[in-house]
C-alpha cells in the first residue's frame, strides 16, 4: 500500500515548548520525519508555514488566553485528527494544578498587579479537550522520543498508534527497581501513566507524575497510604497535583470530602 504522506501541523500554546523541542530532539529521525510527512506548519522549526487543511495537528500546551482559544478552535476545524502532545495539552500541566494561595484571579493580580495587558484576556490554564474534541493523547513532560516516533510511524502507515495504558510501576518493575512507596516514601508511580520507562525511580527518585494521570487510578488509596506513612495532607495534595490538572484535583477533592464525612 502506498499512501500519501499526511499533512501535519505542530502548534504550541502555553507550556515550556518541551514537546516541540523533543520532536527536534529526534536528531536521527528528523530528516526521515520531514520526509515521511508533509509538515505544513511548525513555527518553532521553520518559517514557511502554510495554514490549511491538515491530516494531523499535534498540539502542545494548555490554553490560557482568549486568543489561544480562538486559534485552537480554528485548528480543530481544519484538522482531521487532533493529537494532544505533552501533559499540558493533555491535562493542563503544572500551570493547571489549581494550587497556590487564592484563586487564579488573585494569583494573577499578585504577579501583574493591576496592569491591564491588552494583547489578550487570560484565564486559568486548561487542557485542550476542555474546548475541542481530541482524538489521541501522547502525554509526557516532555513526551518520550520513542513513544512519539512509534505513534507517528503508525499514523504515517495508516495504523492506530498504541501507547501503554498502565501505570509507571509496571515499567518500574521491568527495570527492577525496589519500590519506593513500599519503603514508606512518596512515589507517584501508581497514579501516573507509563511511557517514560520509569526514569525517576530508576535513579532512586520518586515519580513526580509528569506523564499525567493514568486511566484507572486509585487516588484515595494512595492518599490514605501516604497519610499513614506520616505525610501531612497539604503536602500530599501538593505532591499529587503537580501534573494531573483538574482530573486529579477533583479526585483529591472527592477523597477529602469523603474523609470529612467519615
Amino acid at each position, binding site marked *: 500500500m502506498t499512501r500519501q504522506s499526511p499533512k501535519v501541523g505542530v502548534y504550541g500554546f502555553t507550556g515550556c515548548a518541551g514537546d516541540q523541542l523533543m520532536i527536534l530532539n529526534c536528531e536521527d529521525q528528523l530528516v526521515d520525519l520531514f520526509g515521511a510527512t508533509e509538515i505544513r506548519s511548525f513555527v518553532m522549526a521553520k518559517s514557511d508555514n502554510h495554514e490549511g487543511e491538515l491530516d494531523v495537528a499535534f498540539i502542545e500546551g494548555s490554553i490560557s488566553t482568549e486568543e489561544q482559544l480562538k486559534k485552537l478552535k480554528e485548528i480543530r476545524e481544519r484538522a482531521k485528527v487532533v493529537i494532544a502532545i505533552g501533559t499540558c495539552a493533555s491535562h493542563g500541566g503544572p500551570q493547571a494544578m489549581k494550587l497556590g494561595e487564592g484563586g487564579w484571579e488573585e494569583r494573577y493580580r499578585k504577579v501583574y498587579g493591576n496592569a491591564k495587558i491588552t494583547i489578550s484576556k487570560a484565564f486559568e490554564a486548561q487542557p485542550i479537550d476542555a474546548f475541542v474534541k481530541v482524538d489521541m493523547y501522547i502525554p509526557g513532560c516532555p513526551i518520550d522520543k520513542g513513544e512519539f516516533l*512509534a505513534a507517528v*510511524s503508525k499514523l504515517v502507515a495508516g495504523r492506530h498508534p498504541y501507547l501503554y*495504558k*498502565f501505570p509507571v510501576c509496571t515499567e518500574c*518493575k521491568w527495570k527492577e527497581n525496589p519500590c519506593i512507596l*513500599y519503603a514508606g516514601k512518596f512515589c507517584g508511580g501508581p497514579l501516573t501513566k507509563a511511557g517514560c520507562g520509569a526514569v525517576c525511580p530508576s535513579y532512586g527518585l520518586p515519580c513526580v507524575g509528569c506523564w499525567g494521570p493514568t*486511566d*484507572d487510578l*486509585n487516588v484515595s488509596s494512595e492518599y490514605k497510604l501516604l497519610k499513614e506513612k506520616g505525610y501531612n495532607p497539604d503536602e500530599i495534595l501538593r505532591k499529587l497535583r503537580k501534573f494531573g490538572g483538574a482530573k486529579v484535583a477533583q479526585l483529591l477533592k472527592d477523597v477529602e470530602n469523603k474523609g470529612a464525612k467519615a
Partner: protein
Amino acid sequence: MILKMKKEDLSTFLDSVKEWGELRGPTKKEGRVTYSRVDSLSQMDLKAARTIIPPKKFLYPPRFTMFDYDQDGYTERLGDVPKRVLFGIHPCDIHGILIMDKLFLETYKDPYYAERREKTLLLGHSCIPDDKCMCIATNTDFVAEGFDLFFSDLKMFYLVWVGSTKGHDLIRLKPELFSRELDKNDILNYTEYRKWKNSQFKTKIDLTGMPDIFELGYGSPVWDQLGDKCLSCGQCTMVCPTCNCYNVVDEVELGALEGTRDRFWDSCMFREYSLVAGGHNFRDKRSDRLRLWYTHKLQAFIGEFGKPACVGCGRCVETCPVEINVVTVSTALKEQEVGK
C-alpha cells in the same frame, strides 16, 4: 545422581561453566537484588533471599520481538538468544519455572520460551528463608526436578544434585572437583540441614482448604475492602514467578510498512485487560480483578493441577505498597476481615 563438592571449588567450577554460556547470578547493587551478568562467584550475593524479578525474565523477557514483518508476511525472530548459565536459583523459583514450563511447553509449544529455556541452564542453590518466605506452606521449599544442577550448602561442602544431561555435561567439564563418595555423615548432615531450614520460617500460613474457602468467599465483602486498597499498579503480577500474561503490539518503521510484532508483560490487575468491544468490561472493579488473580493462584490452579500457582517466594509481600499479598488475602478470606 548426587555428588559432593568442596565449597572452595565452587568458584573454579563457575569459571569453567562460562565455557557453556554467559554466567548470571544474583547481585546486590544500590539496594537492589537482581539476576545480572557476572564474571565470577565473587560478584554474586548468595545470601539475598530473593531478587526483585524472578528468573522468568530470562525465559520470557518483559518485552521482546516475536516477528519481523513486511508486506510478504511474518518472520520469527528466533536464534539470537545467548546461551546462559543461571546460578543461584532458589527452589521456589525453580518451581515457578516448572509452572511456566507447563504453560508454555505443553499444548501449543511456545518457541520463544522453548528456545530460551533450551539455551538456559538452571543451577539451583539452597537458601535461607527470611521473614517473607513461605515456600514451606506451598510445598516448594525443595525441588526434585526442573534444574540442571542444584547446590545444597551444607556449611562444609556442597551436595550437588544432577538434574539433567546438560547438568551432567557441566560436571564433566571439571570432574575432578566432584566426588561420588557419600557416607552416613553426609546423610545425617543433610537431615539436620532440612530440620534447620524448616525451623527458619517466620511467615506461617496455612493454605489447606483454600479452594473451598475461595468458593465460599466468592461474594465476600472482603474483596471490596481489598479492592478499595489496591492501586492497580500491577507490581504483584510483574514480580510473581508464575504470572505469565502478556500483550502484543505491532510497531511500524517510520515511512514503511514493515516493523516488528512485540510482546510485553501484561497484568490482569489492569482495567484494559478484560475490556471488550462496546466498552463492556468483565472485571471493571478492582475487587473483581483481585479476586481473579487470587482465585487463579489459590483455587483454580489447585483444582487443575493439585497444587497452588503460588511458590511462596514472598515477592508480593515485598512489593505491594498496600499489603495485598498471598498472606494477607488468604488470611482475610479465612477470617472474613481485612487486617489493618
